[in-house]
Structure formats: C-alpha cells, structure tokens
C-alpha cells in the first residue's frame, strides 16, 4: 500500500533523514521505534506531505506521492494524527470531529463516520458539546484519533498517541489502537513505549539518526541487541 524507499529529508537544507525505507501493506499495524531525534516524526510528516524528500521515492497505491501536498495526501486516504494531539481547543468535540471529515462531502457518510467514532470512544459522545480544550489529556488523544478517522482513511498514521498520558491511560490508548487494527484499519504507529508498540505490531522498523537500521516482525525486533540495550534496558 505505502512504499517508502531510501528517502532523504532536509530541514532548511540540513539532512535529518538520511536513508529510510519501509513499507506498509493493507491491514497491517506497523510500528516505527527509535530514540528521540531519530527522525520518526519527520518521517511521518514527510508521508503526510508537510515535508518533501530530496532523494528516494514514496508511493501510495502505486502512485508517486513524493511531491504531493498535504491536501492531496489526505484526499488520497492517508491521515496523520500529529504529536501532542493538536486539537482545536476553542471548538467543540463534535466540531473538531466534523473538521476531520472536511474532505467528505456526503452528509450521510459523515454522520456514519461520526457514529463509528462515537462507538469507538463513547466518552466523546457524552462530551460532544464540550470545548476540545477542556478535555483531559486522554480524552484529547481520543478526539485526535477520532478526528483522524472521520475521513475513513485507508492509512492512519499515529504519532506518539501515548505521549504525556498517565500509565493507566497509556495501556487504554494502545488497546484502542489494537482494536482499530482488528477492525481492519491499516495503521502506521510511532511510539515511545517500544515494548508494547513492537508486541502489538505485525512488523516494525528501528530508526537511528535518520536511518532504518533494522526491520522485522515485532518479536524479531524485540530480540535484537539494539532494542534490548537501548530501549528495554536489558
């Protein structure tokens, strides 16, 4: 479905991603793990069209997307749920969700997506009128994910969904991600909770200073020295 090959990405001229390759097949949950500053978020933002690769190629459903704008990417069916949630604080929960379906022109379809998201996160339904900014951290994360699902994307990219949540909520959030996968969503996950992220993933990639240095099934990666030493403290 998504195929990224040997991309290089620069921030104002300076390369931060040197050589990253990975692919995502339909229905898979793929985890990308790596230390802070290894370039995980940059990779997601590049797929999302906010940044563009200076080398290498990116294909989605066999179409080149390396020069596509964010709007085009969203219309092709990839949504990005950004780090730190970035919900629209002064707007209500439902207004936030409806903005997630901005590209959906069919009202009925939009209502269906709304039902789907409310089914997934019932707490959002009870708070539909509340302003986004007044929700707790966990609820805001649910809202951000729900908003990302509103356009019923073919690929959902989640950037650190458990960031800044208390431990109990971290587990809940990751369970929600697992549920999404079970329901047939294709997910590209970037997580700091390396063990959980790799355990639940079909496959994973390890990123280090802008390079993919390992790939394999979640279990395989958990066995590698670098993951054991650098992330699990074994």
């Amino acid at each position, binding site marked *: 479905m998504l195929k990224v090959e040997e991309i290089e990405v620069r921030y104002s001229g300076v390369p931060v991603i040197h050589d990253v390759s990975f692919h995502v097949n339909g229905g898979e949950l793929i985890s990308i793990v790596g230390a802070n500053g290894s370039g995980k978020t940059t990779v997601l933002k590049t797929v999302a069209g906010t940044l563009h690769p200076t080398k290498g190629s990116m294909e989605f459903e066999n179409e080149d997307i390396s020069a596509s704008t964010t709007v085009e990417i969203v219309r092709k069916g990839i949504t990005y749920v950004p780090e730190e949630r970035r919900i*629209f604080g002064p707007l209500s929960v439902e207004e936030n969700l409806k*903005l997630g379906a901005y590209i959906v022109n069919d009202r009925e379809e939009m209502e269906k997506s709304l039902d789907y998201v409310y089914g997934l996160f019932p707490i959002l339904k009870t708070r539909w009128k509340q302003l986004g900014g007044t929700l707790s951290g966990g609820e805001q994360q649910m809202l951000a994910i729900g908003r990302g699902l509103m356009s019923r994307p073919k690929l959902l990219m989640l950037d650190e969904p458990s960031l800044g949540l208390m431990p109990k909520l971290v587990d809940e959030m990751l369970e929600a991600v697992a549920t999404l996968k079970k329901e047939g969503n294709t997910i590209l996950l970037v997580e700091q909770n390396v063990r959980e992220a790799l355990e639940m993933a079909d496959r994973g990639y390890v990123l280090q200073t802008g390079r993919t240095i390992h790939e394999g099934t979640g279990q395989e990666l958990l066995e590698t020295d670098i993951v054991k030493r650098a992330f699990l403290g074994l």
Partner: protein
Amino acid sequence: MEMLVPTIISALLMGMLFALVALGLAIIFGVMNIVNFAHGEFLMVGMYTAFLTATVFSIEPLLTLPIAAMVGFLLGIASYYFLVRYLLKGPMLAQLLGTFGLMIFLRYLAMCIFGPDYKTLEQGVLIGKSIKWGSVVLSYPRLGTAVLSLIAFGIIYWLINRTRLGKALQATALDVEAASYMGIDTERMRGLAWGLGGATMGIAGALLTNFYYVFPTIGILFCMIAFATVALGGFGSIKGAFIAGLIMGLIIDLGGTYIGPHHKFALVYLTYFLVVVFRPQGLFGW
C-alpha cells in the same frame, strides 16, 4: 444634558459601522496574524467605488453595496496572492512594511487618479433626511448605515460560525498545520480571509459614502479607529470587535460633544494606549 440621549443613540449607530470596519481587520489578523495597514485604504476604495458607480450611472447609492463588496473582495484576494503571500516568506519586518507599502501605494494611486478634492454624494434615498422623535433627531444615513452594518456583520458572523467553510477558516486561524492535516487548503483559506476582510471594507465604505466626504486620505482616520477598536475588543475576536465598535462610537461622539470635537480622536488613541498598557489582550482576547 438634554443632548445626552440623542448623542448616545447617534454614537451607537456610528459604532455599528466601526464594528464592521474592525471586523474586517479582525478576520485578517485572526487567520494570518498579520496586521493589515492598508485596511483603511480598502475602505477608501470601497467609498470611491460606491461614489463613482452612483454618480456615473446615476443609481441609488445603496444599490452600489454589492458592487463595492465585490471590488473589496477582489482587492483583498489580489493583495494576498500578489503581495502578502510573498511577504510571509520574509522576516517580520517585511510583513510590517509590506502592507504599509500597500497602504501608501493605494492612497497615492487614488490621489493620482481622483485628485485631492473632497467629494460628496448629493442624491440618494437616505441622504439629507432625518427623523424626529421627541427630542431625538436621527439622520437617515446614520440609521440606514447602522442597520445595514448590523446585517452585514450578522451575515459574516453566520458565515464564520455556522458554515463548513467558516469552520475551516477558524481551524486555519487556530492551527494552520493541524488544519492542513484535515485536508483543508490553508492557502485558499488565507486568501479567503483577505477577500472577506476586503469585502467587509467595501461594504463599510459604500455605507460611509452616504454621509461622509470621499477623499484619498480618508483611510488613515478609519484605520486608526479600527486598530484601536480591534485592540480594545481583543485581536481576532469577532464578538470583541462588535462590542468595542459600539464603545468606540460612544467615546468619539460623547467626547466630541462634551469635551470638544477637536479632542475626539485623541480620545481614541488614549483608549488604545490604556488598553495596551492595562489589558493588552483586549476585552475578549486570549
């Protein structure tokens, strides 16, 4: 004191026009975080559009409203796509000086084309008429302007708060990057914000033409009032622009009546100064 009630009523009527003028500035600032110094010149273009359309084709001045709105809209859009878009890539100073340059350009372009003369409309449904109601005398132009300003304000408020496009505009104002992840074409929203700001000024200008002189440098006066109004209401707040517009009307008219007409604009700047010092976020800002 028998002047008090009529002055207050007249001031509130004028305040509605100030609110409309401030609204245009607030929309552009809200979406872009850019202060449009050429804002008063948009008003001036609206005034000349209304004046010329009304005199050249001898039509009722109020019927020129849609034309002035359209011209304002196009002027706003053109300013964004031909100038502001490029300014955004430059340093902060470029953004400041850029719209300042646009202000000077438009002002002296008008001077060049129309000359420095003051012009007034002499015919129209509202012009020169008034209604007497006890001790209160209301001039038709002020009354009509207030009502139409209120309607225009209401329409734009509805557009921003109740439509899908308006929500997208708000999302862009709140967080450009997050808005783009929703598939919102944020570049288009910015252009639209300038268009809406321009259209608002076109309407305000056409209304003002009914009871005020048209001349090339009128922009500076209303631009300063608009800045003070928006600062008072809170930058980017629509509700704030409305309330502050009414307050500004009261300050100018009450000040003009009871302190002296030559001090009334000094009071505007005094208000601005006090707001900046004591409540920089304005009444409804954050």
